[in-house]
């Protein structure tokens, strides 16, 4: 009896080791959380860019906020790119990295032109689109989970 129990435990352990080895270190849930952060960063970018577009802000404020938030988007891109994704979410991980890079680039545009209303309006529009892309990835991730 005891022998059978031990072999069952050993088998379960082996299955677990194989499962973990094939999983990668970026789960669907973690990727989803990362993408949600990207959506939040893009949403904030939309608000900051809207201030620039309406000439309703201060250049120093826009520049510093863009530097900070752009850094966060870059950090998120690096984190996602460095992680080893589960096979099932590898495509979504790649899409998320691209969105993160796009958001970081848009913030750098705000940093360079913090007082240019035209640039502000363009960035606002693109931030909105980037947020939609991030939301779509998050939806696919949570949808597939269900």
């Amino acid at each position: 009896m005891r022998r059978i129990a031990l072999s069952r435990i050993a088998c379960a352990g082996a299955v677990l080791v194989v499962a973990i080895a094939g999983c990668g270190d970026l789960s669907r849930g973690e990727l989803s959380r990362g993408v949600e952060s990207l959506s939040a960063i893009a949403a904030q970018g939309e608000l900051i860019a809207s201030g620039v577009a309406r000439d309703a802000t201060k250049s120093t404020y826009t520049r510093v906020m863009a530097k900070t938030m752009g850094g966060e988007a870059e950090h998120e891109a690096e984190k996602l790119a460095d992680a080893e994704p589960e096979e099932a979410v590898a495509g979504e991980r790649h899409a998320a990295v691209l969105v993160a890079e796009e958001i970081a680039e848009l913030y750098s545009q705000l940093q360079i032109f913090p007082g240019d209303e035209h640039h502000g309006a363009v960035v606002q529009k693109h931030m909105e689109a980037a947020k939609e892309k991030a939301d779509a990835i998050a939806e696919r991730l949570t949808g597939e989970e269900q």
Partner: protein
Amino acid sequence: MKAILKIALGVIAALGGFLDIGDIVFNTQAGALYRYDLLWAVALGTLGIAVYAEMCGRVAAVTQRPVFDVIRMRLGFGPGLVALVASTFVNLLTVAAELGGLAIVLTLLFDAAFSLFVVLAAIGIVIAVALLPFGGIERVFGYGGLMMLVFVAVIFHQDPDWTAVGNGFIPSFSGSALYFYFVVGVFAAALMPYEVHFYSSGAIEEGWTTENLKENRLNAIVGYALGGILACALVIVSGYLFHPLGVEPTDLGTAALPAQGAFGETGLLLALGGILFCVGGAAIDSSFAASYNLSQFLGWEWGRYRGPEKAPRSTASWLLFLFLGLLIVLTGINPVEITEYSVVFAVVALPMTYLPILMIAGDRSFMGEHANGRISAAFGWLYFALIVVLAIVAVPLLLATNGGGG
């Protein structure tokens, strides 16, 4: 007329001493995450600080003993020392967080290196304290902090769903650890111990006696209520603007965005100016509180009114706390993260300073006819029970939610 003016100034001082980086960070994040659902916790915390501050001010006015004098007398040296170490640790984190907050706002206004502004902020505080009398410090930062009223104007500009806002004052429990973490956060941010340590020592600085008890009550109730209104305004404007968009305010500058959205550059400058004065005032209050606590516990001469010549050890300890706070921020730790830790650890240390005050405020042999009445005692003990529960769950919630990161 003079009495009314004095009370008005006291109220402004209390208002200025209420809002700090912890309130701004936690209330803005609470609104963004849970819309208006945590307004009840802000109101609960505001009532708590008013109850606690009123007791501390009354004890100081009647017995001429500030908080840490009472703590050593009631708890004795050993347990009192534990309370002192815990409070000093929290105060030091708070000084660092406020200095970092000051530097963030200055960076947003003038765009230069953050570390340069941290050093300039500390120098600015030393100059302000050297040049201004005690009452002057309170009033300059209190008046400046009134710029935060722009957030109340933003509410009316946004015209939120008032029924939903009203419902936010009814306690609700979502069941998630993150929600409870924010309940603890907004409650603790309102009840930061340094606020009452400073308030009570300020009563001694200004020579309060039993004749000032009415003033004390009005300052505590009206001043902290106004502070509470501003804290609620931060939750409401953030809930209205950030919640539907899914914005996660991780930076102090984000808190000013609703004012910019409503009133453009003027709104932005008023919001940043208000934050600057509130955080600057809190940097002075928390560094003073750290020095007051140490001096009162060790029996040193203390008090701004005595001057550095007559209170050299107290003055030196104040400069040391400011310097240590400066070093903490210069390590590069994000001031918003320091704020979150200081607020959570503050609620852990709170029962150790709250209980001795509650006991002496109810002791007729010390307080005579000014001891806690039935209502004050009931509120006092109710809040003590609540604080103990929050102190127990605060650190597990901090760990379970990864510091509010979910």
